[in-house]
C-alpha cells in the first residue's frame, strides 16, 4: 500500500545569531544551512495495517507524513501510496487519502461543522446516498449529533476534534495519516478517539499511520511501530519486540499489607519505587518466577502484578541510546580527522 525508499527531505534555512547587529548584517549577507528533516528512510506498509510513527520532537515524523500525503516534495527517494506518486497530487490519489492534524483545523471557523461536511461532500464527489450513510454513521459513532449544527468557534477542543475527524472521513479515505490526533484532549476523549479510529480501520480496512506523543495511543492502536530519530529510521517492527529489546526487564508490582524495610526488598531485584505500601521492582525476565515466589513467601503481599516498563520510559531510553551512539560516531569521525597527517 505504501512504499518508501531512500526518502530524504532537506531544507535550506537562513540562519543568524541573535541581536540587532546580526539581524542587520543578515539583510545583506545571508548564511544558509541545510536541515536534514528526513535523511534516507525506507519502509513498506501493507493494506489495512496500523503503524505508529514514533520519535522525539523534530525527528521528521510530520515531514514524512506530509511527503506521503503530497504536501511536500521529497528531495530524494521514491515514495508510492497505492501506486500513486504523492507529489503529483492526482485527484484519484487525493480522493483515497486524508491527513488529520491535531494542531490544525479545516472546519470553517464561523460556520457549523455541517457546512464543512457539505463542502467536502461536493469537493470529493461523494454520491448522495453514500454521504448520508457515512454521515449518519460518523455522527452516531462519535456522538456529535448535537454539535454539528453549532458554529465551530463555540465548540470545545474535544468536540471540535471529533467534528474534525468526521470532516476528514466523509469521503471514506483508504489511507489515513493521523498527526497527533489526540493532542490536548482529556483522557476519556482520547479513549473515544482511539476506539473510533480502530473501528474505522477494521470496518473499512483502511491503512493507518499515526504519530502521537501519548504512548497509550500507540499501544492501543499500533501493533507495528516505526521509530524515526534525527531523520533516520532507528527501529521498524512490533511494539512488543521493541520493548523486549530496549527493556528486557519486567516490572513486578507488589502491594504490601504493612510497611516493609527497603533492605528486605533489595535482594529481590532493582527497586524502582517504594512508597505507601507499594513497591515496584525491576527484574530480569528469566528471574520473574523466582522473584515472585520469594516475594510471596517472605513478604506480606496482598496483590501482585507483572508489567512491562512504561512505554514512555522505553522510548526515552531508546532515544538516549540513539543520541549516545550518534555522539560517539561524531567523536570517532572527529578524532579520525585529526589523526590524518596534513
Amino acid at each position, binding site marked *: 500500500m505504501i512504499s518508501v525508499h531512500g526518502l530524504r527531505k532537506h531544507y535550506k534555512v537562513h540562519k543568524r545569531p541573535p541581536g540587532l547587529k546580526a539581524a542587520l548584517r543578515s539583510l545583506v549577507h545571508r548564511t544558509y544551512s541545510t536541515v536534514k528533516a528526513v535523511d534516507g528512510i525506507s519502509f513498506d506498509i501493507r493494506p489495512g495495517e496500523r503503524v505508529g510513527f514514533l520519535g522525539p520532537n523534530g525527528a521528521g515524523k510530520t515531514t514524512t507524513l506530509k511527503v506521503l500525503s503530497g504536501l511536500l*516534495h521529497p528531495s530524494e527517494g521514491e515514495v508510492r501510496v497505492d501506486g500513486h506518486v504523492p507529489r503529483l*497530487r492526482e*485527484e484519484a490519489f487525493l480522493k483515497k487519502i486524508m491527513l488529520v*492534524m491535531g494542531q*490544525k483545523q*479545516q472546519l470553517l471557523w464561523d460556520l457549523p461543522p455541517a*457546512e464543512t461536511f457539505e*463542502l467536502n461532500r461536493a469537493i470529493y464527489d461523494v454520491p448522495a446516498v453514500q454521504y448520508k450513510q457515512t454521515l449518519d454513521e460518523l455522527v452516531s459513532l462519535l456522538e456529535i449529533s448535537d454539535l454539528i449544527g453549532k*458554529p465551530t468557534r463555540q465548540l470545545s477542543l474535544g468536540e471540535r476534534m471529533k467534528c474534525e475527524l468526521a470532516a476528514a472521513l466523509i469521503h471514506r479515505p483508504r489511507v489515513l495519516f493521523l*498527526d497527533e490526533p489526540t493532542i490536548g484532549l482529556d483522557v476519556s476523549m482520547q479513549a473515544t478517539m482511539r476506539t473510533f479510529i480502530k473501528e474505522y480501520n477494521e470496518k473499512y480496512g483502511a491503512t493507518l499511520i499515526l504519530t502521537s506523543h501519548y504512548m497509550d495511543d500507540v499501544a492501543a492502536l499500533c501493533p507495528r511501530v516505526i521509530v524515526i530519530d534525527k531523520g533516520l529510521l532507528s527501529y521498524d517492527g512490533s511494539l512488543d519486540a521493541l520493548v523486549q529489546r530496549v527493556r528486557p526487564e519486567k516490572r513486578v508490582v507488589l502491594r504490601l499489607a504493612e510497611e516493609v524495610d527497603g533492605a528486605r526488598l533489595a535482594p529481590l531485584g532493582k527497586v524502582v519505587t517504594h512508597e505507601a505500601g507499594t513497591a515496584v521492582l525491576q527484574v530480569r525476565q528469566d528471574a520473574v518466577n523466582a522473584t515472585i515466589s520469594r516475594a510471596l513467601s517472605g513478604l506480606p503481599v496482598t496483590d501482585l502484578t507483572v508489567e512491562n516498563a512504561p512505554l514512555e520510559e522505553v522510548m526515552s531510553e531508546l532515544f538516549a541510546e540513539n543520541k549516545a551512539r550518534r555522539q560517539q560516531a561524531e567523536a570517532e569521525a572527529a578524532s579520525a580527522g585529526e589523526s590524518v597527517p596534513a
Partner: protein
Amino acid sequence: MVRRYLRLLGVQLKASGLQALQYRADFFTEGVTSLFWIFTALAPLFVVYGKRPEVEGWSFGEALLVVGWFTLLQGLLEGAINPSLTGVVEHIRKGTLDFVLLKPADAQFLVSTQRFLPWRAFNVLTGVALFAYAFWLLGRPPSLTGMLASVVLLGTSTLLLYSLWILTVSAAFFVVRVDNLTYLFTSIFDFARWPSSVFKGVARGSLTFLFTYIIPLALMTTFPAEAMLGRLPLLSLVGAVGGSLVFAWLARRVWRYSIGHYTSASS
C-alpha cells in the same frame, strides 16, 4: 469537469454567503464602509474639476466614466478577489493551506473562491449608476459597439486584477509575510481612478508606460471608459484581450511553481 467546478463554486458561494450573514452587525458596517469608499473615490474628482473644464483631454463627464469603472472594479476586487486571496496568505502563514492542497480539486480554484463579501456588490451597482450619470452629463448615449467592447473589457479587467493578485499572493510562498505587498497593491490600484493620460507629464511619460504595460491599470479603467465613449482603437481592444490572457497564463505558471515550493508550517 466544468459542471463539477460550477457546482463547487455554488457550494463555496453558499458558504461565504452564510458566513456574511452570520454576523448581522458586520453586514451593516460593510454597507456603510462601501458608501464611504464610493465618496472617497469621487471627492478628488470634484476637487480637480472644480477649477478647470478638462484635464489632458478628459472632460468631467468622461473622467466620471473612469471613476465608474474604478468603483465597479473595486467592488469586484474587494468583494470577490481580495477576501479569498488575503485568506491564502493567512493559510500559508498558519500552515492550513495543507488542507487546501489535500483536496482533490484545483488548489487555485479552491483558494480563489473560498470567500466572497456579497455586500460589495453595492460598489458594482454604484459604478453602473455613475455610468448613467456620466452619460447624462455628456448629453449622449453610449455607442452599441462601444458598450459591447466595454463588456469584453470588463472580463479582461477582472482577469487582469485577479492575475495580479495571484502573482502577489504567490510571493507569500517565499517571503511569508506579504501583508505589505497587498497594501502596496491596493495603493497602486488607487491610481486607476484617473484616466491614464493624466500621468503623461510625470517623469517623461514613464508612469503612463508603467501603468499600461507593467502594472496594466490603464487597461482596467481607462480602456473600458474609452470604449464606452467609442474612441478606443480596435488594436487596443485586441491588445487588452491578448495581454490579459498572457497575464493569466503567467500567473497560473507562477502559482504552480510556488506550490511546489510550499514548505508548510510547523506541525
